[in-house]
């Protein structure tokens, strides 16, 4: 984690302003809390994956961070500017693809890209044209007549062709088939690695996140429960299983605790400062299981 962070920092010292910052964002819809005071800073060049259950507030957080909704309290900054009052310069540096994009359904794919391209100073029309071809989208069909997956791809092309420095994607892979999903991930990974594009994306598909994300944030009930480097998370957390007879020895510090039917105990524990698992893991019968992000996520979010 440290190595990654340093590498990022060295590469981008000329741009010290964080692309996205959230400070104490809180919001609610009709009485139910969507966000409960979220603080989040994204380092330049990093790829942050946002995961959480349905209704955890992922879309709300993303929209609040981009100034697309007025939060009840807290502020968000995009490249140092208040998100609700972005300048043209900042707007031309960011691109956002909402969940199930449905904008400008009355234009054809070609028309939409032409129209949007007129507003962006660094618009890559060659990329737009070739990607449209490569992704087999008929340029002269109305967007309304495309399938959800095709719609998503057109909007991704729109976002990528503007050559943004910050790319924000809300569930980008939801409507894509495995091949298209892999292509998108490749594009994201390479852009982050080479152009230094900062990426924030939310997803349910944890394996996507494990491929391309450098960091992961768990959003649970309107709060960031955990925020960590992807590799670090896998190495730092594990499931400790204690049989019933020694479950009293369970460490007090744990991310989640579940009592199984047979009286045994499952805990999500972290390594201490010296990289050691809690004491209880050395007891006879105790077991430490390394976890993938998905298992970790399920254990915590349950």
């Amino acid at each position, binding site marked *: 984690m440290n*190595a*990654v962070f340093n*590498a*990022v920092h060295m590469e981008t010292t000329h741009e010290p302003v964080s692309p996205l910052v959230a400070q104490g964002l809180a919001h609610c819809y009709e009485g139910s809390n969507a966000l409960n005071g979220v603080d989040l800073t994204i380092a330049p060049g990093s*790829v942050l994956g946002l995961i959480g259950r349905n209704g955890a507030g992922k879309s709300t957080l993303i929209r609040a961070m981009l100034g697309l909704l007025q939060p009840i309290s807290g502020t968000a900054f995009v490249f140092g500017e208040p998100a609700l009052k972005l300048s043209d310069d900042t707007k031309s540096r960011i691109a956002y693809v909402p969940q199930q994009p449905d904008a400008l359904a009355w234009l054809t794919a070609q028309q939409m890209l032409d129209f949007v391209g007129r507003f962006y100073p660094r618009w890559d029309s060659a990329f737009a044209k070739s990607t449209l071809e490569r992704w087999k989208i008929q340029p002269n069909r109305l967007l309304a007549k495309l399938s959800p997956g095709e719609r998503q791809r057109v909007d991704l092309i729109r976002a990528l062709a503007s050559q943004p420095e910050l790319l924000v994607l809300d569930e980008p892979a939801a409507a894509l088939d495995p091949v298209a999903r*892999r*292509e998108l*991930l*490749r594009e994201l*990974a*390479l852009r*982050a*690695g*080479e152009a230094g594009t900062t990426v924030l994306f939310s997803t349910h598909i*944890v*394996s*996507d996140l*494990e*491929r*391309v*994300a*450098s960091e992961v944030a768990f959003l649970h009930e309107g709060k960031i429960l955990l925020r960590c480097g*992807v*590799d*670090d998370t*896998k*190495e730092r957390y594990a499931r400790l299983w204690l049989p019933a007879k020694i479950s009293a020895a369970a460490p007090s510090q744990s991310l989640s605790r579940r009592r199984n039917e047979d009286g045994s105990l499952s805990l999500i524990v972290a390594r201490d400062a010296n990289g050691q698992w809690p004491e209880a893991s050395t007891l006879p019968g105790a077991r430490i*299981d*390394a*976890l*993938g*992000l*998905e298992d970790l996520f399920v254990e915590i979010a349950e």
Partner: protein
Amino acid sequence: MDASLLTIQPNAPEPIYRQIVDQLRRLIASGQLLAGEVLPSVRDVAGFHAINPMTVSRAYGMAEAEGLLERLRGKGMAVAATRKAVQSESQRMALLEPQLQALARHANELELPADAVLRRLAKLLGD
């Protein structure tokens, strides 16, 4: 070497960079990668597997620090020339250590006698 020689399992508990380093170790130890052989670029590996290039650089960096790889000017990463084609037995044995430990743990959990497990293992190795 081709990027497809590596297998990446994103949802395994092992971080991806560790999966790469482990596979490089094994490929070199077994002689599938020879000294001086140039590795695919970070971009190629990242592009082929759709993974973050930073993860690949980190893996290459670790392998370099370990002495498995060396940086060639203008060519990128290559298997270290000082590396013997095939490593000593103890080094190769060390690569098997995690799997052996897991095997031992499972055998204990199943309360199997050690000699029975060893007999079976010997038979498997003999084939």
